[in-house]
């Protein structure tokens, strides 16, 4: 019965071509890592920083934006069936794992090549799987926690993991900084706490999904916007510059959320500025500055790039309402201003870090100039292009009901991640050479500008979205 249930749960959430591709790459990954074992130098330096940074990012995003891989039909049918709770929770956890945690295996798999011996390869392979399970579990656990608790836990977790760079062997990411024994034990212990909690939550999902819908948030806004007396274009900017919208499927970082929430841009700017100040302190003024400045300055734009691309490419259209916006004005004009306003609003996240990097550059960290160019121009321009590509591919889903998957996850949506990786490569190249960073920023800036000016491109997107079921 368990096997049948797992098969049913997987096939109702993922298309067969998608599952086929994921399986192929997983097998390919394992074979290549097996063949390559010991052929790379042992992991250290940049690889370790990447592992720590990416792990913190994955865990934090899972906690903050985590969600459940459940469909509306689950609530109406599956959860009402007399199924064994254990089997139900295992099936749903498997689906969560395939949908989110598996990303870890692809992104971190190359570590196995640097494992050295067969024994360490096996241990690291197991660590990767456990880390993926932890990230999956955190996505589920976030459903239980209030926003403040989630933010608090994410911050504590971030600091804990970051301490591995300073030599703490007892963190969940220490296996990837060289402390294989204590790191693996700590990771296993962490998983022993989070995974059972997640399984229990999934076992009683009918209660959990209700809790998710009735999450402890107010049903009224304390501060509201007014659009009275504003022209159509001013109304668009007023809306999107006042608030950052977190809408849609935040899956890229190993988490899945179908929510529509808004955060005041000024609040984001304050938080982002505070974080940028801490970043500046750590990388420019602290005793660890020499150790931290170069790796952190390089990793930061990559993480910022991922956040911005996810916010833009997945979120821009997920909460869009064609029946309102595209019938009120020319979709080309509307979408042009929508994209521009959202690109500008994401500067609330990246802007303070760009400023911090300029300060760092003056303090003798040359690579910080490249990072500033990336944060100010490359990421914003790329996010406009990525938003177009994702919509053109038909890989974006409209969020009509929160806490629920809008439909089956298919291959196109996986392919939609490709632009993100192209941008990450471009960012890495930009970090290597100042000239490259200027050229890449210039080319992407001009391309995005030309695309914004084309009316036919955006009218085509509006038709495409409607044909894909956007209302």
């Amino acid at each position, binding site marked *: 019965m368990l096997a049948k249930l797992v098969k049913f749960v997987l096939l109702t959430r993922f298309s067969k071509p998608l599952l086929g591709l994921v399986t192929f790459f997983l097998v390919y990954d394992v074979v290549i890592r097996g063949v390559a074992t010991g052929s790379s130098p042992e992991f250290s330096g940049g690889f370790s920083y990447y592992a720590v940074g990416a792990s913190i990012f994955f865990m934090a995003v899972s906690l903050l934006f985590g969600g459940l891989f459940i469909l509306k039909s689950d609530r109406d049918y599956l959860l009402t069936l007399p199924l064994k709770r254990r089997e139900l929770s295992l099936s749903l956890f498997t689906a969560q794992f395939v949908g989110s945690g598996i990303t870890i295996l692809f992104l971190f798999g190359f570590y196995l090549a640097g494992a050295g011996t067969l024994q360490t390869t096996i241990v690291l392979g197991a660590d990767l799987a456990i880390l993926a399970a932890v990230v999956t579990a955190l996505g589920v656990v976030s459903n239980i926690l209030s926003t403040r608790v989630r933010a608090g836990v994410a911050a504590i977790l971030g600091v804990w993991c970051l301490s591995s760079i300073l030599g703490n062997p007892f963190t969940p990411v220490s296996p990837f900084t060289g402390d294989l024994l204590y790191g693996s034990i700590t990771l296993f212990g962490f998983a022993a706490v989070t995974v059972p909690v997640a399984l229990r939550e999934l076992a009683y999902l009918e209660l959990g999904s209700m809790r998710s819908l009735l999450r402890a948030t*107010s*049903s*009224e*806004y304390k501060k*509201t*916007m*007014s*659009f*009275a*007396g*504003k*022209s*159509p274009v*001013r*109304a*668009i900017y007023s*809306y999107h510059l006042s*608030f950052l*919208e977190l*809408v849609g499927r935040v899956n890229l970082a190993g988490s899945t959320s179908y929510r*529509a*929430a*808004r955060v005041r841009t000024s609040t984001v700017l304050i938080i982002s500025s505070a974080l940028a100040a801490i970043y500046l302190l750590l990388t420019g003024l602290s005793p660890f500055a020499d150790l931290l400045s170069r790796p952190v300055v390089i990793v930061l734009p990559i993480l910022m790039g991922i956040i911005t691309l996810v916010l833009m490419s997945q979120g821009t259209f997920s*909460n869009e*309402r*064609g*029946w*309102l*916006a*595209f*019938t*009120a*004005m*020319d*979709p080309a004009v*509307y979408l042009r201003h929508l994209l521009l306003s959202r690109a500008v609003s994401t500067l609330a996240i990246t802007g303070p870090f760009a400023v911090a990097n300029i300060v760092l550059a003056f303090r003798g960290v040359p690579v910080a100039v490249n990072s500033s160019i990336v944060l100010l121009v490359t990421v914003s321009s790329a996010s406009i292009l990525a938003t177009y590509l994702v919509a053109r591919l038909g890989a974006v889903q409209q*969020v*009509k009901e*929160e806490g629920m998957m809008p439909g089956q996850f298919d291959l196109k949506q996986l392919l939609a991640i490709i632009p993100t990786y192209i941008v990450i490569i471009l960012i890495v190249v930009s970090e290597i050479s100042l000239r490259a960073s200027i050229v890449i920023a210039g080319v992407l800036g001009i391309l995005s500008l030309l695309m914004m000016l084309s009316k036919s491109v955006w*009218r085509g997107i*509006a*038709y495409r979205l*409607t*044909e894909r079921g956007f*209302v």
Partner: protein
Amino acid sequence: MASSGQACIEAKFVTKSYGKTVALDDVSFSIPCGERYALLGPNGAGKSTTLKLLVGLLKPDTGTIRIQGYEPFSSEAKSILGYLPEDATPYRTLSVRENLEYIAALRGVKDVREATERFLDDLSLREYERAKVGKLSRGNMQKLAIALALIHRPRIVLLDEPLNYLDIPTQERVFKMLKSLDSTQIVSTHIMSIATRLTEKVIMISRGKIVWNGTIDMLKGLEQGEEPIESVVARLMTNAG
């Protein structure tokens, strides 16, 4: 408003396909200004596609559509059209009032505040004006959607199952509101009582083709004995298939 008798909505030889599925096949019809039509048809007949084409959200593969002489996606057509899709959801991250003001501003309504206040009162949304739309009941969301479709006083109104989710008192209020509008209307519905109360004429579509076109009275004239009007409609749709 354009004079009665002049065509406000005109579709000529319109075809629309989604991949290999033909949703509308060589459809032609004309709706004079000021008239109210019900759009009837079984599930998947092409009713929603027809409305989306008329409102300019979709482009026909072949054929032409004119809204008072304008292309459906032109700004002239957009300013006179009001559209409510089935299961419409407004912007979930905005409050009720913000939705009304935002759409009124996008549509260039002169007195945004007056229009907002009017609909907050007319559809009993006042107590929810600061509420997050994502937290509204389905019925209140439908009331807001109706307000958003009508906030710019459109001269041509296209409604897809407008009374879904509404309680009976609100249904009556919406009936009165729609009846009082000085506009051309197309109402897509499966419920004959709605069609007979809101409209005088019928276009019946089945499998992407128009299978019957006439007045509600003509439809009633096809009743055999004690046969209810629903049976007549079902018979016409089945025979067409």
